[in-house]
């Protein structure tokens, strides 16, 4: 070792440097290659293709903003945006508060907490397509839900009309997804120090006040994060709509991403589809930027 040091020249030093870094580089390299090939290239290509007319036979042609103009001048585009916003809103109104409330309630259970957790998480492990198949039947005019409704003397409902279909899908998805969110909230609710409740109770705080002034503030940042994740997820949603209603009736469940996929794989216009993807991407970046700013401010 010492003799090596004595004869160290620039070349040897370089070689030692390489030896130090060699294994690290070799370990990271496969992941870097894969990320470039299957993440970065598609992302960059997506932006490039949005300015091109994609043609597999004749090759791509640069067309400037034409894809964007074509997209924004079609009426489908605005229907899809309106539907997506409506869907996101419904998900917040119907779905967002449910897991948090259930998590607080479940944390109060003295027995069978495990059963509640597992039962709630059940739909998350069953493949979504199976659930869609099941629920199409449950929502059927002569399906179990209508049998139940008429059984207790209510009029039967049609769940896939123009006005109802989106609401039906949101109810189904709330049922499907809330178990996972409950577990995440639960971990945080259970972690709140119990002496806080003890102290509050001694000071005469009612149960409701304890939830309002201790539990909720503790899960506030988690609520914000889950809210953002939900906004991101629901804005991308199309699979339930595709499998259950196919975007109908009369485009009532045509979401933005469903329209994008239609442009790509039904109309085979990949340029327009990537233009829609790029627009969505920009909106998402702006949203994340605001979230980061909000988070910074709340930390101060």
């Amino acid at each position, binding site marked *: 070792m010492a003799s090596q040091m004595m004869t160290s020249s620039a070349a040897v030093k370089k070689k030692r440097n390489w030896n130090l870094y060699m294994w690290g580089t070799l370990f990271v390299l*496969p992941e870097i290659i894969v990320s470039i090939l299957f*993440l970065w290239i598609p992302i960059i290509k997506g932006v490039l*293709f949005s300015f091109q007319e994609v043609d597999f036979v004749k090759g791509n042609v640069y067309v400037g903003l034409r894809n964007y103009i074509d997209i924004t001048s079609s009426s489908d585009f605005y229907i899809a945006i309106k539907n997506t916003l409506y869907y996101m809103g419904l998900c917040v109104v119907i779905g967002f508060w449910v897991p948090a409330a259930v998590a607080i309630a479940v944390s109060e259970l003295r027995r069978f907490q495990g059963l509640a957790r597992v039962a709630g998480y059940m739909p998350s492990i069953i493949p979504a397509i199976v659930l869609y198949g099941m629920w199409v*039947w449950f929502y059927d005019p002569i399906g179990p839900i209508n049998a139940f409704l008429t059984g207790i003397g209510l009029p039967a409902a049609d769940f896939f009309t123009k006005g109802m279909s989106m609401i039906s899908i949101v109810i189904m998805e709330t049922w499907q997804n809330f178990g996972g969110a409950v577990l995440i909230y639960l971990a945080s609710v259970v972690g709140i120090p119990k002496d806080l409740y003890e102290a509050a109770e001694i000071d005469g705080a009612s149960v409701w006040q304890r939830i309002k002034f201790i539990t909720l503030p503790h899960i506030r940042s988690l609520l914000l994060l889950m809210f953002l994740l939900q906004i991101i997820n629901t804005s991308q949603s199309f699979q339930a709509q595709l499998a259950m209603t196919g975007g109908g009736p009369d485009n009532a469940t045509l979401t933005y991403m469903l329209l994008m996929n239609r442009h790509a794989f039904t109309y085979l216009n990949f340029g327009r589809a990537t233009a829609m993807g790029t627009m969505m991407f920009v909106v998402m970046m702006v949203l994340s930027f605001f979230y980061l700013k909000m988070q910074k401010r709340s930390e101060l």
Partner: protein
Amino acid sequence: MKNTERSILSSFDFKRWQVKLGYSVMVLIITLIIVSMLYPFLNTFLSSLKTTGEFFAFPAPFFPKDWLWHNYIEAWHVIPMLMFLKNTLMIFIGTVTFALVFIGMAAFALSHMRVPFKKMVVLFFLSTLMIPSATYLIPNFLNLQSLGLLNSYWAFWLPAGANAFYLLLMKNFFDGLHKELFEAARIDGAGEFLCFFRIAIPLSVPILMTLVIFYFSSTWNEFYWSSLVMLEKDMYPLATGIFRYVVYSGSTIQWNVKFAVLSMTMVPPLVFFLIFQRYIIGGLNVAGVKG
């Protein structure tokens, strides 16, 4: 022990009738939720054993009169279940292997080895976190097409590792392992591969399990992407097969047989879930604390 501990409510609260009433209502609601969670699965299973007449009877009987296991035999003939199942398993096994090797090695290097420009490399991976995959779904498809990977398992295996979120989870876990462990091993003459496979991997079983579970559920769930990437029926995984042949409005398969297919599809994930339940709950906590 734990049951005697207080949470929001204390044992004193239960002496008041309002609290008792509220608590009973709450328990009732949770019970209803649990029932509504389990009922659809039970209904699907029982319906799959009914005759078509019973299935469409209004209101339908809860239990079938005769348990028609014949529907299940028919289900096997209606769609090539075994082939779809084989494809799903092939995709899952390859995906997990490639992803865990690539992600694991990179995460280990980033947290315990010398990597040139480490900060830049980490940033390179993390900057893709913010971009939802649906926005580049179509260029991703075109990219696979130009690489000639369509209609092969490689289209799932190779990109499996390209996931910054899982890389971050893994790196966070490795960061928690003590550096001294690896230093001691290196002094004793262990190479980096030995450090990784004999020390890091055995210590990180929980996080590996979590990732296996994530990949399992995404492989079982994914039906749309695979329906694009796999061009031939022979290559469809189960979920895509069901999407294409069972759950679409023009499907001519009888409902009771359809439900037999759906019931059978539910079994493997359920078994998987029961076996790995412990890790699933733990994994969600890992995923949940990232905020």
